[in-house]
């Protein structure tokens, strides 16, 4: 009997505690409709992708703070609605629906992994919600409501391959993550190698989450390539560099499209693990232009504890500003009118240089730099490609989103 009362007491206690905790967490969406413009953000601030998600959330905060300090948008303040999606695709779906149906946001930005983007894209289309995916990815998304403003293989693969083959030789070895991004980007590498007279001497795909690269490194040593393309991603796979450093071929040039610029492996691993690494990207923290320096300074001032300001943070910051400019020009947050403005070839002077929306593919035209890390992981800029166009969807697949939208993702593997 006494035992019973005790556990009943505990149960009541537990319920009270958890409801208090829940109540504490449940605020923010209580403001009245109409006096603010709502910007929904879906980023992973915990779980596997927190490394980039935290940076991207901070980038939105920075951009919105600046806009609000300059008098807001259409005379209204921008309000951020940002649940934590916890690196979970199901959570992305729940939260996308909540942002649209309950919070009635005016635009949604976010998603890091391609899987989470694909999870929410149909929800955006179903509800006619403007969606910015400000992230580097494998390319190919053609959807009326989606604006992937990050870098795609046209920006990164064609450029870096051109430089590498010209400077180091034609034998290429690719080691890539075994999922959509890795496989599709590896296809691009193959296509680029064919076009540029290179030769693929080896190719290996590593399952996500794999952290032991012994046998892969042995294979690379046997193949003796002129340079190595690394398309590994995620926290586990970045262990490749540590292991390559002790066992791999000394001084072999490497190239990538995501490492360093996105997940700052050159900061996370001790030199010289990423010596001789090349990456073609629109932005890195070490970039040496006045605009980039100013952006990094502002970011660092607001978030002094962040480890790095990477290309996705810059893309996110640019995405928010592109949208704000379109809203300003359209004079409304009405989705169709904002899209019409964006499809007008809208451009903005981003920290990485001029960024223009390509109307036909909704992707971005942007400057691309070739960054290089030396033995001490000091970054230098080797080359710059001006205003690289995302040509592939339009030229190869005949997509013109101003006319008609297929709402799907195309892949070069077909």
């Amino acid at each position, binding site marked *: 009997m006494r035992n019973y009362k005790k556990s009943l007491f505990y149960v009541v206690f537990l319920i009270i505690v958890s409801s208090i905790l829940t109540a504490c967490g449940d605020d923010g969406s209580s403001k009245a409709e109409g006096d603010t413009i709502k910007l929904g953000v879906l980023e992973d601030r915990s779980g596997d992708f927190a490394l980039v998600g935290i940076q991207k959330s901070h980038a939105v905060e920075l951009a919105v703070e600046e806009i609000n300090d300059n008098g807001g948008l259409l005379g209204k303040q921008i309000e951020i609605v940002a649940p934590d999606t916890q690196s979970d695709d199901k959570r992305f779906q729940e939260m996308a629906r909540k942002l649209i149906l309950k919070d009635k946001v005016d635009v949604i930005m976010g998603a890091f992994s391609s899987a989470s983007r694909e999870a929410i894209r149909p929800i955006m289309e179903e509800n006619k919600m403007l969606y910015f995916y400000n992230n580097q990815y494998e390319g190919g998304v053609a959807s009326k409501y989606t604006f992937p403003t990050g870098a795609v293989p046209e920006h990164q693969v064609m450029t870096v391959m051109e430089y590498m083959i010209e400077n180091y030789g034609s034998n290429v070895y690719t080691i890539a993550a075994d999922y959509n991004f890795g496989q599709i980007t590896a296809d691009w590498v193959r296509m680029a190698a064919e076009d540029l007279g290179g030769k693929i001497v080896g190719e290996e795909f590593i399952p996500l*989450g794999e*952290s*032991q690269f012994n046998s892969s490194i042995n294979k690379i040593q046997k193949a003796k390539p002129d340079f190595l393309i690394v398309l590994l991603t995620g926290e*586990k796979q970045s*262990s490749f560099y540590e*292991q390559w450093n002790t*066992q791999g071929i000394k001084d072999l040039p490497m190239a990538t499209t995501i490492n360093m610029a996105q997940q700052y492996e050159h900061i996370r691993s001790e030199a010289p693990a990423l010596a001789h690494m090349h990456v073609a990207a629109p932005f890195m923290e070490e970039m040496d232009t006045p605009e980039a320096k100013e952006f990094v300074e502002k970011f660092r001032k607001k978030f002094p504890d*962040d*480890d790095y300001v990477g290309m996705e943070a810059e893309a996110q910051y640019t995405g928010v500003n592109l949208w704000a400019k379109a809203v300003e020009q359209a004079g409304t947050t009405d989705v169709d009118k904002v899209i019409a403005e964006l499809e007008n070839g809208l451009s903005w002077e981003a920290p990485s240089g001029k960024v223009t929306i390509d109307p036909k593919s909704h992707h971005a035209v942007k400057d691309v730099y070739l960054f290089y890390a030396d033995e001490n992981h000091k970054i230098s800029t080797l080359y710059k490609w001006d205003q690289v166009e995302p040509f592939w969807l339009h030229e190869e697949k005949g997509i013109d989103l101003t006319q008609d939208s297929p709402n799907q993702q195309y892949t070069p593997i077909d």
Partner: protein
Amino acid sequence: MDSFSFLILSAIGLAIIFGMMGVINLAHGEFIMLGAYITTLSCLAGVPIPIAIILGSIGVGIFGFIVDKLIIRHLYGRPQDSVVATWGISLIMGQGMLILMGPSLQGPSTPLGSFSVGGINYSLYRLILTIIACLLVVLLYWVFMHTKFGLRSRATMQNEEIARSLGTNTSQMYTLTFVVGSMFAGLTGGLFSFTMTIGPTFGTGFLMESFVTVIVGGANPLIGTVMSGGTLGIVHSALSYIFGTFIGRVGLLVAAIIFIRLWPTGFSGLLEKKILRVKKTNG
């Protein structure tokens, strides 16, 4: 050989806890992660590498002791409830580390460099890992077979009630087991922290492999784990080398399924049917 040491090292802490207590420690990966953090941080503070590794092990051991006193102690004999509790612990540890230390930490690079056989480079450090794995197995064998602790723990493992009635403090045995298991997890984290990048999800890379190894091994933390680590290691490294990492990983899992089907109580059941009784986890 490398695959063998990875499997053995990642499994051994979990194996001790599972074999002795029947507790499936879902926070095992996070324990490994904690060991890696302690080792890396002490290394960055200037502590020599071997001492840093030992510090990592001891640190996680102390942490394991606290966790045992606060939580696990209340769940002795309720293995399915400890699944919930350790899942909760893993959530708290993973996210707590993210809050405390941020999403990344620069670790020191792999010590000792490499040597070359037939034009292919091998890491000297990883060779040492393999040796350490073997040494640990020997050490464990000695502890279990030649010390009082080993005798008592084997007794507890076989029949808790009789062991207790014969004067073994089984509750104390469980605490000790949990601490020793945690120390091994911390050691694993410390050893591998030099070959991998450090972050709050460091440990999840070990989780799947350690589970498979431990359960295929069966209830005996020593013989079972060594046998299954050895066999699965050979399967995994041979398949990854010939067909690539994807087939290697799938092959590891399929091999585990087949082994269990052939010997439904794991390797230790196969070997020591008479000596050891497989603990029921659904009691």
